[in-house]
């Protein structure tokens, strides 16, 4: 049962020419607006109750995509639907509270908490404002939430700076849970945490999913984490989806050359001292992406068609999608 569906979603960030540049253009300077295609034609569907991992490196647009899904920024093109209804429609109408069903957990636990608010207010503000609980019930509600994320309710009158990184991450989770969401977008939520704390928070995510029946979009650059927690994995490169597959299959037999390179390059605990061999080339700048398939300059299998034609995301096997011309040849 699809809970979130994206159809042809794109997001462009445009920096228009200023007066001086436009004047220069009158003289034939040939300057144009700076356009970044952060997200380029993404279509994706997430089913209720599943955990989808979204993986990519810098500039791939995964954070932007996460924010579009969470409703924080509007797409330039395409639609995002939540349980069949477009987000844009929900935002405008009286069903605004439906937006609360999609919540985001941010990357930096310090920056995402208001440094001048006490924890009880950070967690308790939204439920009261939206009428989820009354003021009388609030204290008990907040206590229950804090206990659920593993924090001691005695400390709810303290400020964020008095907590450790892992605890702040939990506060952020409690804040999101306070408005009773169905769907959580976790944007690199464990990236800044120490190894041992990361394990605690990941276990918490899995426990919450089991207890509350949540659906997750787990955005990360850490393949090990994604492999551990996701049912399906989506790989993104420079604004486009390049591969989607159930996690086990993706890690066992990656199809797209970029996925293969990514998996080959990830340091593994099981590996012992070996010679590192890397994919060549730099990640292109989103300001000036290569034509055709974005990955072709770094791809060991690139041929002519790759330089000219953008590969479409095609279903190459049941539930497996890949955007690579090599699949057509086969």
């Amino acid at each position, binding site marked *: 049962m699809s809970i979130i569906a994206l159809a042809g979603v794109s997001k462009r960030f445009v920096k228009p020419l200023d007066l001086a540049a436009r004047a220069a253009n009158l003289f034939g300077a040939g300057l144009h607006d700076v356009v970044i295609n952060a997200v380029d034609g993404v279509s994706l569907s997430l089913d209720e109750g599943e955990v989808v991992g979204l993986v990519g490196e810098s500039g791939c647009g995964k954070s932007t995509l996460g*924010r579009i899904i*969470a*409703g*924080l920024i509007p797409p330039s093109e395409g639609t995002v639907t939540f349980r069949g209804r477009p987000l844009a429609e929900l935002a405008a109408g009286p069903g*605004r*509270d439906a*937006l*609360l069903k999609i*919540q*985001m957990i*941010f*990357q*930096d636990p310090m*920056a*995402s*908490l*208001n*440094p*001048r*608010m006490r924890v009880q207010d950070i967690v308790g*503000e*939204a439920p009261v*404002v*939206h009428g989820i609980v009354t003021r009388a019930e609030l204290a008990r509600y907040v206590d229950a939430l804090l206990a*659920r994320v*593993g*924090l*001691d309710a005695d*400390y709810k009158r*303290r*400020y964020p*700076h*008095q*907590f*450790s990184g*892992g*605890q702040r991450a*939990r506060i*952020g989770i409690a*804040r999101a849970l306070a*408005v009773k969401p169905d769907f959580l977008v976790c944007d690199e939520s464990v990236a800044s945490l120490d190894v041992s704390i990361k394990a*605690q928070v990941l276990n*918490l995510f899995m*426990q919450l999913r089991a207890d509350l029946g949540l659906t997750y979009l787990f955005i990360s650059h850490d393949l090990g984490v994604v492999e551990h927690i996701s049912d399906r994995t989506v790989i993104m490169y420079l604004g486009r989806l390049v591969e989607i597959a159930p996690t086990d299959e993706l890690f066992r037999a990656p199809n797209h050359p970029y996925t293969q390179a990514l998996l080959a390059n990830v340091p593994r605990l099981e590996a012992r001292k070996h010679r590192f061999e890397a994919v060549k080339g730099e990640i292109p700048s989103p300001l000036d992406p290569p034509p055709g398939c974005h990955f072709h300059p770094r791809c060991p299998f690139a041929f002519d068609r790759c330089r000219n034609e953008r590969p479409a995301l095609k279903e190459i096997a049941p539930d497996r999608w890949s955007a690579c011309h090599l699949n057509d040849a086969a």
Partner: protein
Amino acid sequence: MTLVDIRGSDLEPWHARAGRTFSEFAESRVAMAALGLIVLLLVLAVLAPWVAPQNPYDLSQLSIMDNKLPPLSRGFSGQLYLLGTDDQGRDMLSAIIFGLRLSLTVAIVATATALVLGACVGLLAAYAGGRVDAVLMRIVDIQLSFPAILIALILVAILGKGVDKVVIALISVQWAYYARTIRGSALVERRREYIEAARGLALPHWRVAFRHLLPNAFPPLIVVATVQVAHAIALEATLSFLGLGVPITEPSLGLLIANGYAYMMSGSYWIAFYPGIALLVAIAAINLVGDRLGEVLNPRLAR
């Protein structure tokens, strides 16, 4: 589920943190002396009717016979005039205390009002962005490009003289500083993730602006406001000196100086001199405290 034991790196409630800020402030002896002085001046100003030897506005207490007496001289009825008397026979010490009271009141009221007004404008500009921001900031720019004294003079010329008019003039001059300062820090804070999170929780705009953005954008204003009080005192003194400020019946320090100015050359220097010293001390002390506050608060802001 394991309960986590909280032992953060700086585990202190907010009042201890304020205490820590204060103890760092106190490390500068000069700033502490200045702070002590300001406190003394404030106490004197508040308690003026009880502290001053004489009420200089009560004509029945004045004796024209005692006029222009030098400091430390005795009057006709035997009272000691510590700082002498002016041409009307007013005790200078009392006049200075009451003058200080008026100067500080005007300056603080004007600064506080300008702060609230400027903060609202700046916050709105930062939060709304786009055209609203551009328009408001151009108004601020225009305002700031005029010299303060010129604006004040024009306003007083239009509105007339009087304490309330002076306050209005001071507010009009000052609000733009606060608007610009808070807009700058609000723009930085607005990009932070906790504001995004507040929007994600579908909180209404006014709530995000006042409950989330304002408390975090506010700290730079504390330092600006402190120093602006000193500016306000100086500006009011200037206006009054020029005869365009407070009325003669309620002299502020500036008016006292103006009054005594005529007698400077004829030997009765104390009539202008001691009010001048009082003005200087008040402004210098406030500036010193403002400087130190800025030093102490600044690294914390970066955190």
